């Protein structure tokens, strides 16, 4: 999928463009400028003209001059999508020449969720490596936004090479509960900014031990194709104990969950960087301690670099993807693929992201097909039909690949509604029936609502290999 022909020596000269899409994306760009980023071009893309005007970034693209008329997408991904389609040429121009595109977007709203897939696919068209950094909304933002975000994430995962997604909720954990909401959102921006800078640094710095793009992509992909949960940690420290401190800070990152998630990761990317005074000993200390947090099975991709700009500081970046439960309602819709490849003018309105009727999980998309709309479309939309049929057939909606299926359109939607999705809830599945073993016949010991006769390691989901 990605071109592997990047030679290590010219890594430093790679042209990187960082694109901030939508309101959240622009905030991240502003944060990046604040934190300082070198050798990368920043592009802000938005439907909201006012927000664009307020951004400090120099290169801006306004989407949807006629669709939204500078007023924003109103939290509706379909509007965002339409606006992006209108501005396709401008976006293409803005991305031109980039070899690596970092797409920063906050999912759940209108512009980000709707346009992300278009921007990503445009970048792909240019043979750039697309790394997307996406945030998923807080729980308090409501189920609808969440559903929109998940859907957009799924689509993005198909069009970007690598998607690093962060849940705002997790970042909220890192902020004190009494902190203002500004801080919570600012935390999100900070994390994104850190990760963008970390990866840019990885790519840019002349490393002693170099990490190449392909390794980067492998680490961030995870093993399976069903998308992975990203684990990111960044820590910086100075002083006597900086190796230890930096690692501790990196692990403290809320997206790292104190290193617990690392145990499940298969490929982990670690980059240690420091000023010229960094010693081998320090690197060793750091890596030894780090090794205690990972399993023996995981593949460690280690990179080290010396950057005079860091001075006394030592920093460590940890990146990985853990094969995890994809949020059950992620569906990959191949429709937009056909959308972009064909001429933008012939866009039937039902192509954009499915209207989120209600936040019911998997059933949602399938239900959509029972609406009469698809049937009204003229026959030459085989991609759509096949997608529908494929979705209906496999109740596991992980890959709704446009398989070459015969036209089964009319019965398919009905079949879809009858089929029970087997993937309803993936969160907590006990692999054995809850059993009390020896205590089957005695009075249960219930403390604080928990049945203590059930083994502790089962109740706490402690991993026992």
């Amino acid at each position, binding site marked *: 999928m990605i071109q592997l022909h990047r030679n290590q020596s010219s890594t430093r000269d790679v042209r990187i463009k960082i694109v901030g899409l939508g309101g959240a994306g622009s905030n991240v760009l502003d944060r990046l400028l604040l934190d300082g980023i070198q050798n990368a071009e920043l592009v802000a893309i938005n439907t909201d003209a006012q927000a664009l005007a307020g951004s400090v970034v120099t290169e801006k693209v306004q989407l949807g001059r006629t669709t939204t008329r500078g007023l924003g997408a109103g939290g509706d991904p379909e509007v965002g999508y339409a606006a992006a389609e209108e501005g396709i040429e401008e976006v293409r121009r803005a991305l031109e020449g980039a070899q690596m595109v970092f797409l920063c977007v906050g999912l759940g709203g209108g512009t980000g969720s709707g346009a992300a897939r278009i921007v990503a696919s445009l970048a792909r068209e240019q043979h750039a490596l697309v790394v997307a950094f996406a945030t998923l909304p807080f729980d308090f933002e409501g189920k609808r936004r969440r559903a929109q975000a998940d859907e957009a994430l799924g689509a993005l995962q198909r069009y970007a090479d690598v998607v690093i997604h962060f849940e705002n909720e997790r970042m909220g954990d890192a902020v004190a509960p009494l902190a203002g909401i500004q801080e919570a959102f600012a935390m999100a921006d900070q994390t994104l900014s850190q990760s963008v800078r970390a990866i840019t640094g990885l790519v840019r710095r002349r490393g002693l031990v170099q990490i190449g793009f392909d390794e980067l992509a492998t680490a961030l992909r995870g093993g399976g194709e069903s998308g992975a949960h990203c684990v990111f940690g960044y820590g910086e420290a100075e002083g006597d104990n900086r190796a230890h401190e930096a690692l501790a800070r990196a692990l403290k990152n809320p997206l790292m969950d104190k290193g617990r998630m690392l145990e499940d990761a298969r490929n982990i990317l670690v980059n240690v960087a420091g000023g010229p005074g960094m010693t081998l000993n320090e690197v060793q200390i750091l890596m030894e301690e780090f090794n205690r947090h990972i399993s*023996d099975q995981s593949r460690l991709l280690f990179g080290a670099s010396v950057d005079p700009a860091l001075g006394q500081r030592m920093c460590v970046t940890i990146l990985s993807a853990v094969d995890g439960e994809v949020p059950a309602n992620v569906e990959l819709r191949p429709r937009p693929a056909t959308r972009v490849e064909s001429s933008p003018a012939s866009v039937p309105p039902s192509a954009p992201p499915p209207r989120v009727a209600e936040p019911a999980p998997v059933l949602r998309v399938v239900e959509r097909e029972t609406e009469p709309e698809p049937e009204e479309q003229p026959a030459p939309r085989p991609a759509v039909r096949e997608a529908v049929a494929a979705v209906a057939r496999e109740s596991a909606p992980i890959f709704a690949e446009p398989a070459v299926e015969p036209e089964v359109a009319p019965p398919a939607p009905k079949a879809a509604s009858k089929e029970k999705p087997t993937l309803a809830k993936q969160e907590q599945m006990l692999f*054995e029936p809850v*059993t*009390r*073993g*020896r*205590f089957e*016949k*005695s*009075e249960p*010991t219930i*403390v604080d609502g928990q049945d*203590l*006769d059930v*083994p*502790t*390691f*089962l109740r*706490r989901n*402690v991993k*026992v*290999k």
Partner: protein
Amino acid sequence: MGREQIVVGLEIGTSKVCAVVGETRGDGTIRILGVGQAPSRGVRKGEIVDFETAGKCIREALVDAEEKSDVMIGSVYLGVTGSHISGFNNRGAVNIPEDRDEIFDEDFEDVQASAREVSIPAPNMFVHSILQHYYVDGQDGVLNPIGMCGRKLEADFHIIHGVATRIKNSVRCVKEVGPEVLDVVFNPLAAAQVVLDQNQKSLGAIVVDMGGGTMDYIVYVDGAVKQSGALAIGGDHITNDISLGLRIPMAKAEKLKVEEGSVILGNARPGETIVLKDETGFAGKAVEREMLNTIIHCRVRESFELLKKRLDEENYLQFLGAGMMLTGGCSLLKGINHLAEEVFGLPVHVTHAQTVSGLTSAFENPQFSTAIGLIKYAEAMQPAQPVGLFKSLFKRIPFLGLW
């Protein structure tokens, strides 16, 4: 030199029933003559669930004890436990009648009765009222008010109560087998008599008896019992967890826990396995040591955390100068004192019965702490002078020092 008396302590535990025959001399020392035990069936979480089977096990244990000590057992002190037993503190007060101002013995009984006038749940009965402090006319720190003048006598008691039917069940079960039950004692109270010395009691200490079915605890602060209770989690739960987690039968799990179990994580070399031997000697299943330790660790940690929660309710943890004494079968798990230290933040010692003489193998085994403690308790209940046994048992004047 006081009268020597044979006392038998009987503990009907979840993993074993044991009867300890001891000789008490009036000076406070105890000599162990023999220990009889039998594996216990029909008891779960410290309570009898199968009457008949439990009776058989009790008989077996008593017969064993009789053989080993060469003594005929006619009466026992019975230890009871179970999550239904709990303790709380209450103050009793009594006004000295106007015609005298000296405090007499009757006043103690009145004060005790007054302390018991608190509502306990309907199905419950009192098991112990343990004296904590006296107050005479509001004056604190009175050790022995007999003969003192005062208008009002108050006393703080620690009251232990439990479901009457369950306790009576145990008593009946023993009676069916034969011997008389002289008194019913809450297990950790008995264990504390032989595990703690007076100094430790004044410094403040907690005794935790981790047995097969329950985790019993009793807290001493300034020499007085302040908190006690029992959690229905024990070694059985650990074995159950191992059995379910490693998918091996209970018997093997028990053996594994006893022989190889450890609470410490990260100690095993990665991938180190234990090979379970079959009865025929052929190597059977191999289990990872780290997995075993993880399962045990989780369970024990959770139990300790639950206990800590209970202790935090009354907040005596900070007053425990002598720390925690762990006893009972589970205290033999490797590394358990470190885990306890981590959870409670107290110095933790794994101990067994002290201040006894006689059969060394008996008292150096923490599994027998409770049963031996029953003997010590019996001894403490007897007066120094030879008085009629029954009369003295019920009219014992509780001096603080002896508790």
